[in-house]
């Protein structure tokens, strides 16, 4: 490979006001990973460069950094694949306080994981002499989440976390999925209850940064949608977000004999989301009036698609679809 300019973030909280990018020039050997390059920089060019690493085989989760602005495992990234116009930028993970160079304070990350009570609460109602039985099919439901290596890449790049440090965050939610769906766990409902609270699973915006940055099969967004489906299927719908989901279901597919329109009813949806909360409904008034004044308000008579009967029929078999989808 030709010479590459590595722009690496340097910072020492004892002496520096803010981080700066320092340039190192290196000709990475054939097949070198970014971790190899960071080590070459440290061992040959600047011994003071500090970063975490250990297994160099993408299983310990130590070496996550931001590469060209996005979280990745340095050990899992070929240097050649990271070069843009002869340069690679390497910075610390986001959403956490910086300590030194590429090292951030992970405590908020671990704290988020701890909040979901990430341990099995065994269901001891059935007695087994040896291991508890779990079908291959049931085990597969928790397989993806169990591949998480706690590298905090998702936590770093989570958009909601940027505005709400109390948000549980993608890693914790993925971890929670692994217990909610574990047939051996006794606390599925309590867990869903906990996750359904504010700053929980419903606060995710689907921005999909987590799944995009995840270096394993854990793919937190997928796990979050599984948690939401579990809550909906269990009828745990007493919150704005779940009612918002019901609003979709009802306005597209119909509700209690009233046929759906096949489309979203943008007048119904916000009101439905607020449930019986008078404060919630009142909060919709300013924007409603504003939109009305600009003739931007959705039509009062909902737009109904042609052949809507087909869609209504699908929604009438809602439970069967859910069951079939479970397979």
């Amino acid at each position, binding site marked *: 490979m030709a010479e590459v300019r590595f722009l690496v973030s340097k910072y*020492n*909280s*004892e*002496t520096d006001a803010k981080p700066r990018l320092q340039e190192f020039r290196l000709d990475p050997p054939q*097949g070198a*990973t970014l971790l190899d390059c960071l080590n070459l920089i*440290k*061992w*040959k060019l600047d*011994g*003071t460069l*500090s*970063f*975490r*690493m*250990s*297994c*160099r*085989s*993408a*299983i*310990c*989760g*130590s070496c996550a950094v931001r590469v060209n602005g996005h979280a990745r495992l340095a050990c*899992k990234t*070929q240097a050649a694949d990271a070069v843009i116009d002869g340069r690679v930028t390497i910075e610390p993970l986001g959403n956490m306080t910086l*300590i*030194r*160079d590429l*090292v951030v304070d992970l405590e908020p990350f*671990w704290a988020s*994981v*701890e909040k979901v*009570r*990430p*341990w*099995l609460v*065994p269901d001891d109602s059935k007695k087994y002499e*040896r*291991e*508890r*039985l*779990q*079908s*291959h099919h*049931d*085990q597969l439901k*928790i*397989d993806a989440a*169990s*591949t*998480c*290596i*706690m590298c905090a890449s998702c936590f770093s790049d989570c958009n909601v976390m940027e505005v709400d440090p109390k948000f549980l965050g993608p890693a914790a939610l993925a971890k929670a999925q*692994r*217990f909610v769906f*574990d047939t*051996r*766990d006794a606390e599925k409902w309590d867990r869903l209850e906990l996750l359904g609270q504010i700053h929980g699973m419903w606060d995710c915006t689907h921005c999909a940064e987590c799944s995009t940055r995840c270096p394993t*099969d854990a793919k937190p967004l997928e796990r979050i949608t599984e948690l939401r489906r579990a809550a909906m299927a269990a009828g745990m719908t007493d919150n704005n977000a779940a009612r918002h989901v019901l609003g979709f279901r009802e306005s597209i597919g119909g509700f209690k004999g009233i046929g759906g329109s096949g489309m979203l009813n943008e007048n119904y949806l916000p009101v439905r989301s607020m449930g019986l909360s008078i404060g919630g409904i009142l909060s919709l008034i300013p924007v409603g009036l504003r939109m009305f004044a600009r003739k931007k308000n959705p039509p009062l008579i909902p737009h109904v698609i042609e052949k809507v009967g087909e869609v209504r029929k699908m929604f009438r078999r809602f439970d069967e679809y859910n069951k079939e989808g479970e397979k």
Partner: protein
Amino acid sequence: MITHDVVIVGSGLAGLRAAIEMAGKVDVAVVSKVYPSRSHSGAAQGGVAAAMANSSDDSVESHFFDTVKGSDYLADQDAAEIMTRDAPVTITEMERLGCVFSRDEKGRIAQREFGGHSHPRACYAADRTGHALLHTLFEQSMKHKAAVTYYSEWYLLSLIYEEGSARGITMMNIRTGELEVVRAKTVLFGTGGYGRAFKITSNAFACTGDGVMTAYRAGIPLEDMEFVQFHPTGLYGQGILMSEAARGEGGYLVNGKGERFMDKYAKSKMELAPRDIVSRAEQTEINEGRGIGGKDFVHIDLRHLGREKIIERLPQIRQLAIDFLGVDCIDKPIPIQPTAHYSMGGIPVDVDCQVITDEKKTKARGFFAAGECSCVSVHGANRLGTNSLLDACVFGRRAGKAALDYTLSARHESVNEAAELGKARKRLDALLSTPETESANDIRNELKETMSNHAGVYRGAEGLLVAKAALKLLRERFKSVRVTDKGKLFNTELVEALELSNMLEYSEIIVEGALARRESRGAHARTDFPKRDDANWLKHTLARKNADGSVSLGYKPVVITKYQPEERKY
């Protein structure tokens, strides 16, 4: 000074398992240079052995015998018997704690074939079994957080061991640079192995034998250090582990002539012979010019297993080969070579993991060790695949129980905090104030080159003497090693220098032990003494540090209870 009842050093399977055993009963601290989930136990892939007999008529007896035979009869049979007997209950416990195991058609823990095991005995979680077990214990550690204090990213500097008793440790907070003394009634090491001294290694950067060397410097002898396992399937050039499960599931080893060469070395077990035999077979093929394209690697071919089986059972190794070599094993064979993998030797302990200090098995008061840093010895001269996770779980558990019993009737002994801190400070200051001439990187590279060339899969007196001389020079050069980072916060350059000092010193012990042992047994293969010599060498090495820093060797007998040594054929 911090005081706890028990201080555990190391947060891998052994350390965490011991901590959980004691949580809530005594005041436990866990010290680790990484966060628990980063520990190298998580990198183990293929499985954990236990005679669950889920898919065969397996028995503890059979597991016991396979382990002893695999060890080339150097294992202590009382210990091997205990490990194999405790295996099913230990694995059942891990399952109950929540470990996500792969399942068979009846919903039981699935089991697969593994090298040297006569039955499908490896319980597994796809090809990330260590990860599944480690994270189960990590989860439990969060459950017990109120009862256990975690010191993550603290580096172990010394063991305080006086008059036959361990009294605590000194450590450095990597994050802040501060030094601390921890006083404890009981010290328990689960600090892992020492495979980083080789050029091609599957080990994490962290596997630098810190615990082992800390004990050694405190006056504890080390057992069987010359026995380093070379895993047959390290990813070419990197040494990254390609699980033995790849062979367990039916993978073929193929040389440059396209031959499945294992029939020359282990006709009946073929690729599923124990690791020492397979690694030597590969090295012989390579040495005799039958590597791929005449180079220093061979192939593992998985193509005939088919896409579905590979994706379901070997997803991690497939991804690793894609990420590191751009090879998808569904379509192409993977280039592999032997890679330094496991340390059979370590801190000598009895079957309850209490450290022993001499040939007469005198116990060290308040000092326990478990897992790869220890030598019970259950693996003897060669560990069978899947017995290491088992070792860490079984003996982590036993260590926890024994250390708990000990602690309940022990009391804190006196520690001179100022003196201990002074010694630690002096060691760090020496590194920070050297004339800055020698590059740690050069020394480390030369060390690894030396060890791989002369103390690798095959060893001979000539090469070992070269290594001995080279190590002496390297240790001399290390005295003026360059540590340019003089800061306190996250000074990883300083930590790496401390690790390098450990690597240099234990490499010398490996070489001394290997040079003295004039036979071939298990992973220790002497070109000049190709036969096992039970008459003279059916014994464990004990290496001790002399006052002048040199190594002196002693020996202790092997415990043989049931199986008399016989020729090892596969």
